[in-house]
Structure formats: C-alpha cells, structure tokens
C-alpha cells in the first residue's frame, strides 16, 4: 500500500492482477479462467457480450463473490476480498449499474454514508460534511446542492453522485460498470474528462461499456471476455470490427436486418389527440399525440430522454391514465387505464426496465413466459401447467434462449436472454401489436441482432411494432417510419432517405430548445448527435 506512484500513463506499475479465476453458480460456469492486469494510470476496457462474465468478475473484485479457483493480486500480494469493506481497504471502488444510494438521504449524507465526519462530541459534523461534499460535487461538475435529497435527482445525476462517492474513497482502482449507458453525450464528455484526470493521477480504471466508439476515445487496453473466458488482450486502437469478432466469436452479418414491407396493411393502432396534464405547475406530460401503426410495419419513436415517449406507451397500454384523446386498435376504441382490455385487443408492452417491470426475477422461466396468458391457461378453475410447460418450451426454443432449463430463475440469465423472455411472454399471450420500449438496452450485440430478426419475423406475420429507442442507429435502422417527440409533443415524422440521425436530432433538439424551461433534464442532451 505504500508504493510510490511513478505516474507513468498506460505503462505504470501493476496495481491489480487477476489470474485464472473461475466461478460457478448452479447450472452456470460464469467465469472459466479469467486473466486481467491493471496498471496504474491506465483505462482498461472490459469488453464482452452480456453474460460473458464481466459482472461476475467485477463483483468478485468488489467482494460480493469469491472465486472458486485462481488468485487476485493487489500490489504484488495475493489478497482475499470477502466484503465491500475489504475492497475499500485495498483501494478498490466500484460503481455498479444499480446505484447504491439511499433515496431518503441528502447527497452529502450519501457521499459519506457510514464515514461521516464527526465533531469532538462524536456527533455528525454537518458543516464539514457539506463542505467536503461540495468539493467532490465540483470535481464531477455536478450542479446540485449537497443538501438536496437524492430522491429528486435524475439518473445521470445519480451516476455522478456515485462517481463522487468513489472519488471520496481515494480509490486506486476504480471499476465502472457501464457508466455511460444512461448519460447524454454532454454528460459522457464530462465523465470522460473526470476519468482522464483520474488516469493522470495514477488511478487504474476498469471501464465496462457496450459503446464501441468509447473504447478508442478513452481506453488504453482492452480485455475481451467471451463465455466466461478472457479471449484476448488488445490495444484500444483495435478496429471495432475486430473487437466485435473477438467478442462474439463470429462475424455479425448485418447489424440492422430490416426490410420494409412491400406495402403496409390496415391500420392496427390509431391514436388521436392523446394528452395528459402534468402535476401542479408542471408542463403537460404529453399533448395532442396522434399517429398510426399499420400491420406489418415498424414505427420508431425517437426523441431525447424525458420527451414523453415512455409515458405515451404506458398510456396506450392502459398502465397510466390519459386525459384526452382516443386509442383505437383494429378500429375499436380501447378503454382507458385498463391493461387487460389492451391485452385482449392484442397489445403487448415490453417495458424499458426489464428487471423492475418486466420479469419475476426469482421465478422460473416457465412462470415468466406464461404470466401474460395465465387466464387463458386456466380451465375449470385450474391452471393447465402442462400446457404452460409445452408453450414455454416452444417459445424458448424459437427465441433461442440460452438457459439450463425452464425451471432456471430469470435472474440468472444474461440481459439479452432476459429480454427474449419478456418478448416471449407477449408472443405466448398472442400479442399482435407490440410496443418495445428500449428493447436492446443492456443487450449484447449478438442478442440484439436476434431481437431484430424476431421483429422482422413478427411483422412479416402481420404484427405491428411500435419501437421506442434512444439508440439512433437502431431506431433508424429498424423502423419503416420514425416519429420524433420533444417536450411531450410529436414534432415530426421521417421516412426513407429523409430519416437520418441529423434530421431526427434536429427535430428533437430544436423543438426541445424552444421552450423556456431552463433546467429540464431533456435539455442536457441538446447536442446528442
């Protein structure tokens, strides 16, 4: 722990070494001989599909799992990381995808949770805590008060608080698990600035990302994990195609395999004048939304985070209320606020957050897959478990879900396979009009393409798809038409040649920028592009 830092970027002293680490869970070998070295003053990118073992590896370094075999070496000495405290003592700080913040406490209290500065009497020294918190917040350029409750912060701000917390620990090894997944490009730029400062001061950073373009921008070296093994260590300048090949173990034929239908069918979904007022003194959640989705068509819904896309989707599906307008499915008006009526009309919603809204994480895959058709499988008061099993097995096979069996719990699947389960649930429910909200968020490249192919199959069979996505290449690549929302309004529709990233962003941003609200979170993304 006393070693002097030579401050050599990218070639510094070795801080951390993982050697031949293996970890098995019931039914799954999550890690199978992983090696990783981290030097002082480098950003080491950990790359791999979901399920490749990245999360298990970093949980191990954070003290949440222990290796079955292999060694973890810190500063040349073998260590055992049994707990978060052990990790902290070794100077390893981890920023997980799921934040470890207490919503009811203030930012300052969260930053110093369990290590609050004390006064001579042993009471919490609030003034010192606020002052130190303010310094940390300034370092991450987060303009919120240390006294602000965490519950009121947006997701990007929460991320920055987590980073500030890691900074306060004076960590020498900082592990960041997909920190950019929820950030706008401006916030990403800020984050990169902070990471570069840390690197210059000799911190070793393990950086996990699914955005390949970030690798060359920020990274020094890349370790690629595949199926629980470390398959390569390459410089960050390696071309993206090569990285994908290493990650997937094969070439990805075509990233967006969408072929628009020759001619779209009858309108399946017709929305007119949909509106929902905001809370007291707030702008409406959405106003005067009108559009159609035809059978066989994929309609994209693009816009900045906070533009109201998810809110519209939830209102259509009957989860949330709307105040004005009508929703028609196959020509028949849908009752408001009634999920079951929407389902009977053939709607299905794949929600944006599959863990908190889509899955029963600890239930079996069979139970998850058959959840939305429970009524239908109930005959004479009893659920036909055999029919459920058969149906679940069929759809799991069709979607190529990688699992040990239908009794496996959903929690233990990778992100892409979890998403297939959520989609499979709606296939089994007989949905003919699917609303996909961020269908590939946190889904690896291979599973993404499988999901796209599935969308193609469904539309070819006459289904209609409304796809909300913040991933512009995806929404452009997969949609036949793109609707753009900004500030709760539909601001444009683009199709064919006119549908370019620039055109979408111009609509999303120009309309958003024209509104007086200065501190809208949606504004922060105004130069996404």
């Amino acid at each position, binding site marked *: 722990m006393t070693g002097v830092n030579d401050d050599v970027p990218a070639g510094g002293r070795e801080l951390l070494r993982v050697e031949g680490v293996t970890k098995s869970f019931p039914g799954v070998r999550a890690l199978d001989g992983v090696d990783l070295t981290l030097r002082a003053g480098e950003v080491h990118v950990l790359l791999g599909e979901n399920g490749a073992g990245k999360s298990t590896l970093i949980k191990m370094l954070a003290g949440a799992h222990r290796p079955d075999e292999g060694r973890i070496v810190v500063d040349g000495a073998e260590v055992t990381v049994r707990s978060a405290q052990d990790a902290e003592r070794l100077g390893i700080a981890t920023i997980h995808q799921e934040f470890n913040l207490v919503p009811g406490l203030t930012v300052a209290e969260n930053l110093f949770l369990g290590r609050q500065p004390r006064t001579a009497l042993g009471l919490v020294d609030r003034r010192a805590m606020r002052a130190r918190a303010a310094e940390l917040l300034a370092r991450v350029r987060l303009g919120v008060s240390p006294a602000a409750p965490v519950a009121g912060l947006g997701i990007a701000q929460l991320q920055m608080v987590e980073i500030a917390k890691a900074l306060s620990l004076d960590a020498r090894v900082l592990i960041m698990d997909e920190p950019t997944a929820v950030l706008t490009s401006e916030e990403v730029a800020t984050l990169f600035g902070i990471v570069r400062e840390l690197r210059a001061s000799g911190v070793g950073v393990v950086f996990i990302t699914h955005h390949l373009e970030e690798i060359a921008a920020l990274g020094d070296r890349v370790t690629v994990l595949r199926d629980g093994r470390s398959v390569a260590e390459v410089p960050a300048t390696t071309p993206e195609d090569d990285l994908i090949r290493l990650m997937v173990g094969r070439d990805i034929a075509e990233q967006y395999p969408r072929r628009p239908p020759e001619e779209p069918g009858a309108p399946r979904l017709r929305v007119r004048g949909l509106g929902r007022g905001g809370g007291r003194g707030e702008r409406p959640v959405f106003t005067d939304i009108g559009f159609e989705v035809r059978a066989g068509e994929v309609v994209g819904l693009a816009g900045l985070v906070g533009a109201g896309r998810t809110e519209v989707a939830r209102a259509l599906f009957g989860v949330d209320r709307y105040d004005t307008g009508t929703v028609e499915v196959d020509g028949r008006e849908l009752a408001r606020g009634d999920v*079951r009526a929407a389902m009977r009309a053939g709607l299905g919603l794949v929600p944006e957050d599959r863990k908190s809204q889509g899955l029963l994480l600890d239930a079996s895959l069979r139970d998850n897959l058959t959840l939305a058709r429970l009524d239908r499988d109930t005959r004479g008061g009893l659920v036909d478990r055999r029919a459920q099993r058969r149906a679940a097995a069929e759809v799991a096979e069709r979607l190529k879900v990688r699992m040990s069996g239908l009794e496996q719990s959903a929690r233990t699947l990778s992100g892409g396979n979890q998403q297939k389960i959520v989609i499979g649930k709606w296939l089994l429910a007989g949905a003919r009009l699917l609303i996909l909200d961020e269908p590939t968020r946190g889904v690896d490249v291979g599973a993404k393409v499988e999901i796209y192919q599935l969308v193609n199959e469904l539309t070819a069979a006459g289904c209609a798809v409304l796809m909300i996505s913040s991933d512009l290449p995806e929404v452009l690549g997969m949609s036949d038409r793109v609707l753009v929302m900004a500030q709760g309004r539909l601001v444009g529709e683009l199709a064919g040649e006119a549908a370019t990233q620039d055109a979408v962003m111009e609509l999303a941003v120009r309309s958003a920028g024209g509104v007086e609200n200065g501190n809208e979170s949606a504004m922060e993304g105004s130069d996404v592009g």
Partner: protein
Amino acid sequence: MSAEVLRAPGSTPGQWFARAVLRNGPLGGLIALVVVMAVLSRDFLNGQNLLNVGVQASVTAILAFGVTFVIVSAGIDLSVGSVAALSATVVAWSATKEGLPVWVAVLLGLAVGAVAGLLSGALVAYGRLPAFIATLAMLSVARGLALVVSGGSPIAFPSSVGRLGDTLGGWLPVPVLVMIAMGLVAALVLARTYTGRAMFAIGGNEEAARLSGIDVKRRKLVIYALSGLFAAVAGIVLAARLTSAQPQAAVGYELDAIAAVVIGGASLSGGSGKASGTLIGALILAVLRNGLNLLSVSAFWQQVATGLVIALAVLLDTLRRRSAR
C-alpha cells in the same frame, strides 16, 4: 454463456446433495428434531403421542396455510388469531344463543372470516395501507367484535360441530384430518389456480405482474379473503377441541402461524413458499412443544426454546440459500 457452459445443473454429487438439502431443508430439520426428542424421551415416539403432536399442530397449521397465501404475495396477515376467535364465536352465538341451524351457523362463521379478510384486503389493495397496518387494525377489530358478540364470556359450542374435535374410530383425531384436507386445498390453490399463480407473480414483482395483465388489486382481495377463510376454519377446529367458543382464544396464534410459514422456507419478501413447507413448520413448532412438555421443561423455558428454534431454522435456511447462490 454458451450452451457448453450450461451443462445440465447438478452434474456433480456435491451439487446434487446441495440441491436436495435446499429443497428438503425444513423436512431435514423436522426429522432431526424428532430424532432428538425420541432419544431424550421414551414417551415421545409412540403412536398416541405422535397423534397428539398432530392435534397440537392442527390449528397453527390451518392458520398458517392461509397466511402462506398472503406471505407468498409479499404481504402479511396479523389478524388471523383474532379472526379465528371471531368466527368461532359467531358460530357458537348464532347456533347456541340465536338458535340458527348448525349448518347455517357454520356458513355464517366462515363468511365472517372471509369478509374480515376481504376488508383487510380492501384496505391493502384500494386503501394502499401497508398490510402490516391494515391487518393490525383487523387484529384489534376482530378481537373486539368477538368480545362484543359473546359478551366477554365463552359460549358452548354446538355439539354436532364439536365432533370436529373428536376422533374417528376412537383413535384418528379429526383436527388432523381437517389439517391435511386444508393443506391439500392450500397446495392446490398455490400450484394450480389462477389466484395461486398470481400470488407468486405479485410477490415476485408486483409491477411486472400488473404489466402482464394480472388484476393485482382484485387478486389481493381474494388472497386476504382466503386467509380469513382459513382462519375461520382454524377457529372452528379450535373451539371444537375446547368444546366452547372463547373470545380470548387464539391470542398470539398469528405469530405462530407466521413462524410456521417462515420456518417452512417461505420468504417474507414474497414470491416463494409451499404448503408442504408450512405444514412442516407447524409440525416443528408442535414437536418442540410436545417434546419439551414430555421432558417437563417449564412453560417459560419452552418460550425461550421456541424463539431459538425459529431463529435457528430461518438462519439455516438463509445460509443454505446463500451457499446455493
């Protein structure tokens, strides 16, 4: 995670054993406890005494089956002891004092239990009260009503229903039969009915259940009503054994019921639980009390021992689950 990594689970004997223990954890505990008691007391392991254990377990088990439904759906029901007493009191009062036909009295008692549960469920589902508070209120209301209806003193139980406390053929106690029957019903409800599957879905992830078309609010009404109904049956069995309905009966039984459910392996955070586990939990509590009685351990120390066993059982279960992760 490739197909090759995902070989069939439990491929080594160790993993197989770990799973077997995890699956049969509470049963293992029961067997161990029975062995210990048999060694310590010569009177424990004879047929008559074992039937006694069954009788002692019956009321707790029936209450606990109902509570299992609630706990699986990530709720809690503190009112079952009071509701049991209220239902029994209503049966006795309407039959003995008001002279209603016995079968009407029994139906009335069952209905009172179900309605009490329904009201708790309505407070939880539509009033958005925490289940703890809603059923705590019902605990007090039902106990109070039992005292009001009975005027505070025991009422003789109609003798025809009182046979529920007797034995069949002179040896087989009816409460044990009722316990087994209710256990089978509970198992069927949990595994095979819409409401049962909805319990697991709601307990596992209420938002996901709602977004998948489960009518969460209505299901909660049914879940708490079932718990009340099971409490009513338990109350009638208890009164039959005591040959009178006592408004102060079954005080604190809700805690035994919850303990039985949890010892049986259900998680208080919802989404898991089994009728068989709950039965084993109730049997563990009964074996413990019976055995300690045979060993002439004082009632005060019995309470201490019961508490320790509850803590130990859940601790072991937690450790088992963690090691299986």
